């Protein structure tokens, strides 16, 4: 991993990744190694391909017929595009939190239990895992008396923490987050950032953010993307204090985007 001082182990290895939507190339020759149990931030002006890159990691593009991908992504040394990969198992291992909180129209409890049921967790263990996940996402105290009320009655920030809770409940190795705070107020944002710092003890986190202070606050590594290319990827401290590329410098100083 470049000239890093942090000792890390690669968990996601991306090389020569190209992605087209129809004729339009959205990702160009991306290569990067994402470190285990670290927080990696993806930054860049909107439309540069951050979400698209993130969604290749759990093969979310399988759902769009006009997406064409070439190149390799290995997770734990396994090529995720290999024909033997069962995509549902991959997605259990690589969880995802979306830009807008998207709880299911079910109760708070069932929102978390659902992922456990479909992934074959034993019935007796489910209540306990639900509770643990709510604790881990700092939500338990706020919802312990209304576990069986509809999740849609929660505030936006609580909904997002619920989505994080349901993601960690199925025990993924990696959590992808696509601007998880962009729909939230500052206080809820702060809570989620604390949560991210806490989660990185156990999980590898890749987070897309348009908020550079957020990248500084939560991430160990930062990748700067521009027009589908990975411009610079390094330790967050390095990117924000002493970037190699002029383009990166301009972006973090707010000269465009």
């Amino acid at each position: 991993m470049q000239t890093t001082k942090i000792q890390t182990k690669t968990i996601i290895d991306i090389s020569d990744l190209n992605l087209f939507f129809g004729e339009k190339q959205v990702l160009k020759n991306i290569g990067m190694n994402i470190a285990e149990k670290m927080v990696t931030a993806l930054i860049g002006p909107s439309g540069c391909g951050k979400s698209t890159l993130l969604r290749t990691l759990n093969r979310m593009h399988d759902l769009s017929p006009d997406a064409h991908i070439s190149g390799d992504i290995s997770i734990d040394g396994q090529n995720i595009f290999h024909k033997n990969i069962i995509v549902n198992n991959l997605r259990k291992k690589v969880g995802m939190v979306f830009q807008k909180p998207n709880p299911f129209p079910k109760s708070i409890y069932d929102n978390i239990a659902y992922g456990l049921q479909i992934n074959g967790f034993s019935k007796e263990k489910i209540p306990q895992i639900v509770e643990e996940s709510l604790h881990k996402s700092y939500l338990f105290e706020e919802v312990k008396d209304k576990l069986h009320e509809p999740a849609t009655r929660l505030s936006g920030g609580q909904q997002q923490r619920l989505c994080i809770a349901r993601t960690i409940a199925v025990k993924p190795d990696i959590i992808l987050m696509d601007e998880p705070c962009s729909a939230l107020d500052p206080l809820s944002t702060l809570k989620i950032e604390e949560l991210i710092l806490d989660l990185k003890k156990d999980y590898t986190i890749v987070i897309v953010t348009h908020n550079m202070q957020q990248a500084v606050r939560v991430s160990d590594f930062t990748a700067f993307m521009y027009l589908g290319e990975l411009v610079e990827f390094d330790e967050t401290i390095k990117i924000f204090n002493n970037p190699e590329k002029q383009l990166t410098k301009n972006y973090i100083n707010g000269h465009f985007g």
Partner: protein
Amino acid sequence: MTIKTLFKENPLPMIVLLLCTLLVCVFLLLILGEIFSKGIPVLSWAFIIHSPENGMTEGGILPAIVGTLLLTLITTLVSLPFGIACAVYLSEYAQNNITTQIIRAAIRNLAGVPSIIYGLFGLALFVEVLQLGTSILSAGLTLGLLSLPYIITTSEEAMKTVPVSMREGAMALGATQFETIRDIVLPASVPGIATGIILSLSRAAGETAPILFTGSAFYVTGLPGNIFQEFMALPYHLYMLSTQHQSIAEVRPLAYGTATVLILLVFMLNIIAFLIRNKFRNKN
């Protein structure tokens, strides 16, 4: 902007639109008023729980009520599973290509085919070719076909309103496409699907033309015993009493009574649809 300020700014369009709306309501009320005023006096327990007597000039309409209920049940059993299966396919599995668009267009057009055509088709296919005879089954299958396009279209629309983000949420947890449909998409579209089904069933329950050749009879002694026999049904009974009976004047009150029962049945179905929608809306 409140209605008052809108009205002050430019009263004319609002007045014209309001008058049009009122006109429609007036006709509806006239029809209902006419039927109920002459039909309700005829209604009694006896009218509901007895068979017609004396060449239809006396007695009740129990066989026709039971016939219509049975018929609607068969229509439901036919159209519900196929309708939902077809809607799931179109909404969730079908690629958006020419074939799918042709299928969709065909279904929309089927919804516009006159019901008498369904009747003749049912006669040809179920009664003749499949040898089911003129029977509740043939008529129910015919009405099932008639209801399908409407059920498919409304169910598909209900499923399409489930946001992509909800499906992605389930898939991101490792749900397969089938699990996502079963656990997320279908439950979320129950209100829309149920409404569409019940409304199309209430329309089917009132149809005469499709059952004319496929199984309904002027008079059958006793209640229907099995689904392979001819049957009496409310709309057909009404049609007969109003146009085909030799002493039309004498049976006129009975015709009004039958019309009232039919309308009340359809109202009941609509109220059920309304309750289902409300129940699910409040849950979320």
